[in-house]
Every structure is written in C-alpha cells, then in structure tokens.
C-alpha cells in the first residue's frame, strides 16, 4: 500500500481490496517506526484515528463514499482538530487540546478522510527549515542530514517518506511550496480566501493560506476539492461556485503562454536548479506551451516587504498566548506583568521571539509609516506587477527555491540567509495568487528540485492541469528518496 497515490488508494478501497482500518493501521505502524528517524509527526492518536477508520469503513460499505473516504491524511499541527493536541510546533501549546475543529478538518471529516496524525512544523509556522520546532527538527528523507524545508516540513517529509498518502500544509511565504520542493513532492497554495483560515492558528493573517501536499497533481486536485469551501466564520473566505478540479486535469497545455520572469532566474540560483527548471520548461514547450519573457520588477523587494508585514501581523496575532486562558504559563513569577513576560519568554522559541520583536518595532510609534505603510505600498506594486504580467501570459514558472535542501544547522545563525530561501515564493502570498511546486529533477547530490507555477487568481484548475500534463510526460514526481538506513 505504501507509495500509492490517494487516487490509487481510493480506488482500491472502493474495490474492497482492503479496508480503511487495514490501510490506516498499516500506515500508523509504518509511520510510527519511521518517525523515530524523520520526526515528521508530533502527535499520533491511534484511538481517534482508528475510530475514524472504522467510521470510514461503514461509509465505504454504502454508496456515499467520496474520493477521500477511508484515506489517512496527515494534518499540519497548525490546524485545530477537536480533541487532538494541537501544538503549532510550540512549547506554548504543548498541552493544548483543541475544543473545536478547524473548518477544513470538518470538511475532511465530511468526506470520510481519516486523520493519521499531526505533523511537525516550524514553531508557529515561522521558519524555512523546520529547525524552530519545539519538538525537534524534521529530517529530509532524501538525506537525513538535511532539512526538509519549512514551515510545513513535517507534512512534506511525511509524504516523501511514504509515511502518509497525503497531507495538509499552510503557506504564508512559501511554507507549502518550499518544503514540497526540498522533499520532492507536489504542493499547492490556493488563491487567498479559497481555503478557510478558521481553526488555522494564525501567523500572518493577510498572507496565510492552507493547501494540500501530495505525491501528484492529481492528488492535489482531490484534496483541494475537500479544502476549498466557503466558511461563514472566516470574513475573508470567498463564496465561489464549486470547481471539480480532478475532472479538469486533462486539459492540454497547448497554446498556454508561460511567463518567464527574468528576476527569478538570476546567477544566485544553483546551476543544477537552473538546468532542472530549463529542462522542465523545454518539456512544456514540447507539450505545446509557449514561453514569454515577463518582468516582475518589484519582486526583488518582496522579501523585505514580507519581513515587515508578516512579523507585524504575527506580533499581534501571538499576543493571545499570555498564559491566561490556555497554554503554557511560567511556573514562577512575581506579578501579572512578570507572569506575561516569563510565560512568553519561556513559551516561545528564539525565532518566534525575534519576529515578534521585529513586528512590535515596525508598528511602534514613529516607525509605522517608514516600515509598515511602506511595506504595504511595496506590496501593492508587487501585486500590480503580476496583474501587468498576466496580460501577456497565462501562467508564470520559475524555480521554487534558489537552492536544494541545505544541511541541518547551516543557516540557523543567519536569519537573513534563511529568509532568502523563500525569495521566489513570497511574492505570490503578497499578491494573494495561487502557486504550486512540483518536482522537476534531482541535483548532483540526488536532492529534489522544485518547479514553481504561479497562476492568475482562481486558476487552480489550470495550474493543476498543467502540472498533471507535465507529470504524465515525466517521472520526477515518482522518484523515491533512498532512506536506506531506515
């Protein structure tokens, strides 16, 4: 069963080749064993998982089964799931058992999917390497000495290592696409507002967006159908007609105009990545697409603007973690303010504190215009760049990351080096555009290379189809990590 796609497993379940309980039990055992090496999961809860599998088996015996009924799915531990410990990778929430379900968790339940476990992540989704998790770093299945990317590193590694058929992630500045690229899987960040943020522990509210991570574009389509749903509890959730992504994956790329932004193909990119991406673009040309040069002149400033906007929103979003109503409270303190200060000093890790300090500073009296307002204006220009580019192209392609998976510890001491690993992914979040990453090669170290696709608003179907066409013509998405020693 391991290594099969959601599509394949769903077909097998409905053909009664095995039950969801059998499938789920197998995955649980396999994942738990591998987790000692990979550390992709923070929480397993066998009892709840198997209860869901049992329920799924009942549905599978009726005509009400969906494409996801009985499929084990791993959820990033940023999603609140009722009765599950939900940590967000932080000591602050180490013992927080959520009393409610996130909207997408409800949706997966409605589809009959089974929660396999909660995956490891950078603390409060702040990180690009999964080294900021309170629960230890995740290791890249392609090389256990390297990072899986972040912040959805656990979700990416779990899919890559066949610890789960598919998973969910969230993407604020590349947190789905960058780990997907580094782990050789497919990941999609939808248009802002398509996937409800209710129950997703907020990092930067105007940028955060949940999305699927899987082995193939086809699987992304299946998961996305469950995840995209209007939610009246999220003011930014959009009411849109239902799109059947999986029925649209066969759309040809003939005549597709692929925009190539020259700003995303600089000399700083590793040569192997340059080559891998160029090969992919050639493949698209072979499939009938046309390459057009475009400019995104403001995008080199996207990292700068992002590191004002995201920390500013985060500094406010994380104020609720004060040791009063839930979560960690420092054991010793002298008074109320001391309780706050010690709770937050002990409950948050170094990177989270750094971003809170940046955010607090840029919003504080006298600095607002120079930083926050300026960043919002840069954001507008970045967004306008894309609007302009989409007049001459239908989709934009670029490398997902400037380098493949780096060594654990390599960038820990220099936050800016770490931040720059999201240099190609951030702009899509600032503009709210859909974007994805699919595997398109291996570098000299046999590490996966990611191809980024950025679509126009609500063109998820077009992007998934383009990715699927590529995956039908190539087999990079089928490459498996060695994991010899595990």
């Amino acid at each position, binding site marked *: 069963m391991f290594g099969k796609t959601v599509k394949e497993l769903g077909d097998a379940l409905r053909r009664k080749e095995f039950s969801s309980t059998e499938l789920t039990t197998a995955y649980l055992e396999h994942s738990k064993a591998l987790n000692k090496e990979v550390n992709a999961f923070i929480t397993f809860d066998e009892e709840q998982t198997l209860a869901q599998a049992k329920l799924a088996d009942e549905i599978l015996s009726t005509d009400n089964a969906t494409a996801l009924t009985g499929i084990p799915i791993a959820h990033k531990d940023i999603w609140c799931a009722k009765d599950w410990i939900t940590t967000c990778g932080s000591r602050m929430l180490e013992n927080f058992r959520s009393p409610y379900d996130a909207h997408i968790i409800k949706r997966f339940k409605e589809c009959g999917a089974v929660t396999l476990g909660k995956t490891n992540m950078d603390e409060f989704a702040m990180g690009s390497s999964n080294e900021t998790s309170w629960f230890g770093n995740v290791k890249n299945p392609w090389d256990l000495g390297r990072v899986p990317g972040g912040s959805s590193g656990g979700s990416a590694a779990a899919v890559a290592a066949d610890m789960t058929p598919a998973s969910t992630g969230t993407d604020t500045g590349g947190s789905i696409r960058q780990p997907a690229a580094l782990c050789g899987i497919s990941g999609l960040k939808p248009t802002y507002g398509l996937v409800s943020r209710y129950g*997703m522990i907020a990092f930067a509210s105007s940028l955060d967006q949940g999305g699927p991570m899987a082995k193939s574009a086809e699987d992304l389509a299946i998961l996305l159908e469950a995840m995209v749903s209007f939610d009246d509890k*999220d003011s930014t959730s959009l009411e849109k007609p239902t799109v059947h992504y999986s029925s649209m994956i066969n759309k040809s790329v003939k005549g597709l105009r692929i925009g190539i932004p020259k700003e995303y193909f600089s000399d700083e990119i590793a040569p192997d990545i340059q080559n891998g991406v160029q090969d992919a673009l050639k493949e698209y040309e072979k499939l009938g697409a046309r390459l057009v040069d475009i400019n995104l002149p403001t995008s080199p400033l996207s990292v700068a603007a992002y590191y004002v906007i995201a920390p500013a929103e985060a500094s406010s979003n994380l104020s609720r973690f004060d040791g009063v109503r839930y979560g960690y409270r420092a054991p010793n303190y002298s008074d109320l303010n001391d309780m706050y200060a010690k709770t937050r000093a002990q409950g948050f890790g170094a990177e989270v504190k750094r971003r809170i300090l940046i955010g*607090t500073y840029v919003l504080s009296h006298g600095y607002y215009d120079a930083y926050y307002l300026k960043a919002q204006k840069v954001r507008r220009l970045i967004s306008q760049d894309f609007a302009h580019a989409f007049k001459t192209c239908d989709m934009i392609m670029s490398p997902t990351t400037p380098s493949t998976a780096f060594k654990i510890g390599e960038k820990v001491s220099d936050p800016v080096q770490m931040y720059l690993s999201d240099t190609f992914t951030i702009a899509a979040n600032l503009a709210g555009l859909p974007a994805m990453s699919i595997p398109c090669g291996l570098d000299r170290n046999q590490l996966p290379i990611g191809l980024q696709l950025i679509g126009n608003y609500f063109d998820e179907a077009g992007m998934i189809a383009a990715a699927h066409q590529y995956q039908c013509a190539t087999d990079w998405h089928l490459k498996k990590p060695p994991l010899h020693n595990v």
Partner: protein
Amino acid sequence: MEWEIVIGIETHVQLSTESKIFSGASTDFGAMPNAHACEVDLALPGVLPVLNKDAVEKAIRFGVATQATINQRSIFARKNYFYPDLPKGYQISQMEIPVVEGGTIKFHVAESEKTVNLTRAHLEEDAGKSLHEDFIDMSGIDLNRAGTPLLEIVSEPEMRSSDEAVEYAKTLHSLVRWIGICDGNMQEGNFRCDANVSVRRKGDKTLGTRREIKNLNSFKFLQQAIEYEARWQIEQIEDGLAIVQATVLFDPDSGETRLMRTKEDAHDYRYFPDPDLLPLVIDDDWLKTTRASLPELPKSKARRYQDDLELSGPDVASLVSSLEAATYFEATLNHFDVSGIKPAAKSIANWMNGELTASLNRSQKDFSQCPISPETLSVLIKRVLDNTLSTKLARLVFEELWSGDSTVDDIILKKGFKQMSDSGEIESFVSQVIEQHPQQVADFKAGKEKALNSLVGQVMKLTKGKANPTQVNEILKSKLS
C-alpha cells in the same frame, strides 16, 4: 482671576444587539461567569471575527440621528495592549476611518440652547471584567462582556461647565434610547462616560493640559468628578504647579479623582488595519433604508407639540423624554378630531404627566407597558370633556381602569358615576341646600363670596359628586340673586 473649564466627553454606548459584535455568543447580562464567552471571545488559537450587521446598523442610526457623515467605507484596526480582560491582546476598534464622523448634539442649559459638535463615533468591542473580591493575591477573569458591541462617541471639547457636561450626557443618553441602539442601563455599565477636563484663564485661546476621568457611570458622578477635577486643577495652577497630562479615576466615596497613569507611561497601541476584517462598506441602499426607519427625533416632535398643539415647555419636555412616552401621547391623540385637538392634547399631557407617570413609576413600567391603552385613555378624557364625568370622578374611573380590564363606560355605568347634567334635578338639590343652610345664604347675600363655595360643596356632597360644579354654581347664583 476668572477660570474657564473646558470639557470633552467620550461615551461608550453598549449597542443593544442579541449577539456579540464579532461572535455568535449572547450579550445577555448576568449569566454565570464565562458562560457567554465562546471560542471566539476567548481568543482560542485559530478563531476569527465576523462583523455583526446589526451593530453596524445601530451605528448608522446614530450617525443619521446626529446629522453626521456616515463613512461608506470604514476600517477596523487592532489596538494592541496586554490586559487579562482583553483575550486577544488587542481590541478590535476603528482608528483612521471611523464609521461615523461629525454630527451635533443640542440641548438646553438655563434656558439657552447649546450645540456640541461630535468628532466621531466608532465601532469597537468591549473587554471582559476582572474580579478582585473573592481571591487572595489573585483576580478572576470573566469574559462574558468581552466582545459586546460598543459605539464610542467622542465630542469636541466644547462644554464649559459640569452642568453642560451633564446635560450633554443626558441628551445623548435619551437619544440613544430613543433611536433604539442602547438600553441606557447605566448600572450595568451600558452607557459610560470618560470626561476630558482642562482649565484655562478666561479669554485664553489655547487649551490647557487635560486630564481624562475614566468610566463615569452616573450623571451624578460625572458632575461631581468634573467639579472636583476642575477645582483641583485650578488650585494646582494657582499654587504655581503645572498640570501633567494623565488618566485619572473618580472615587465616589471620597468624591475625589486619583491618578491612574500619566502620559509618559501611556501605551504604545501599535494600531494597524485588522487583516482578519476587510473594509466595512455601507451602500446607498442601506443608508436610505436606515434613514427611513428612524423614528421622528425628539427635537422635531417637541417643535410640533409646541407650535401645533400649543403645549407648554415643561409638558413638551416630559412628553419627548422617551420614545415610549411620545408614542403613547400620539397614539392617544389620534383618537380625537382635529377640531378639539388642542384641549385634548393638554388633557392627555396632564394625565400622562400626572396619574399615569405616577402609577407607572410605582409599578416600574414605561409607557409601552402601560395597562391602560391609549384608546381607553382617550375615552376617559372624552367623558370629561363632554361633562359626563367630573375630574374627580374621572380619577376614580382611572383607578378602576388601572386595576381591572373593564371599559370606561362600563365603570361609569356600574358605579353610577355619571355626572348629573339635568338642571331640573340639580335645582331640587340646590333648593334643599338653601333651605338647610340659612346662615351661609345670609352671609353670601351680605357680600361674603366665600359662602357660595361652601354651598356648592354642600350640593356636591348631596349629589355624591355627580353634579357638574360649574352648573351648580350658576344655579345657586341665580337662585340667590
């Protein structure tokens, strides 16, 4: 040295919605601690706000009623600070673009009309409560009130005395109840004022340094606090000391204000647009519908009552003191013809400001809950105007009406209250009285006018009050002349 007091008032008006401003939890007062604090109010990880339409509607009503500008696009911002009764660590409020800007409040102080301009009115959420009594070294946090919708109404610093401040607050209080956006309950904290007070020498153009008195929840405290604070500031300056900008609290027990914090340790609130909420847009249709649904305002009613019905100032003031009273008044008036409308109006006013108010107060009801319907009152008044009932008998009928559900005419019939208007019948009683009281008759004939009153009284007594006293008077006079 003559001093001038300068006062601006910020009022927190709790909007009377069923549910909270950003969550579906109840706003009912008096529940068990935290029973009305849902996952959104508790700021659990991952929860999000969704704006209550009715809170916006009520803000628009206020804007329309004060002739303010309604911003058709306004922005919610986060005001960041840490406090245990503020679950998110920020309050959702409005900063740069509030929903309502400008507007005026008009009122009378010592016979002259005063207009106070409003700066703005914005929507925001209330905080919870910290309770200190039950615990040693600890406070208990109740978040039932957290997330209750508030309209913060900010006036310009245009009041010049505590009397003006109190009149302003009273007028505002009456208005928010009138337009149905707040129940006005001050004990429960649903209408609270902060007063910004400064003093300057008369004739000075620049404002003095102000101190803000927080959370005054009665008109009496508002008055006392401003008077104390102004006196204190004047003494400070006269002693050669400077006023330091600060926030102070009023202690009702001592009647004094005490320092809470100075500007130096003021918060840096780090306002920024709330990314969880998009801009609030109010379209023309919404404005139009709300404008049309607003009741006629007290000012306009008062003018009509005075000009068209020729009612006195005090009568009018009490009739427009609440929407319930004005509604009751007009409903009663509707039962009269245009020809006799003025005496009817006067009579209704008398009843409403007399017996009705007294009885309602006794049973703690307002005019909307009055057991005597406007129609019934109109019948009672008609029976007085057509001389069926004397005023005295009418009062007895009123008491019967208050305690039972019978009609005016049934009571008159049952109790035999019908006024005697047959002059023949009255004449025989008058003759009887003249016969029995020769001394008073002699006195009257000797020019003692007062003796006549005594004779009228005797006739009334004999008829058990059913005779028309005016008629008795006339008959007596003609018989004795």
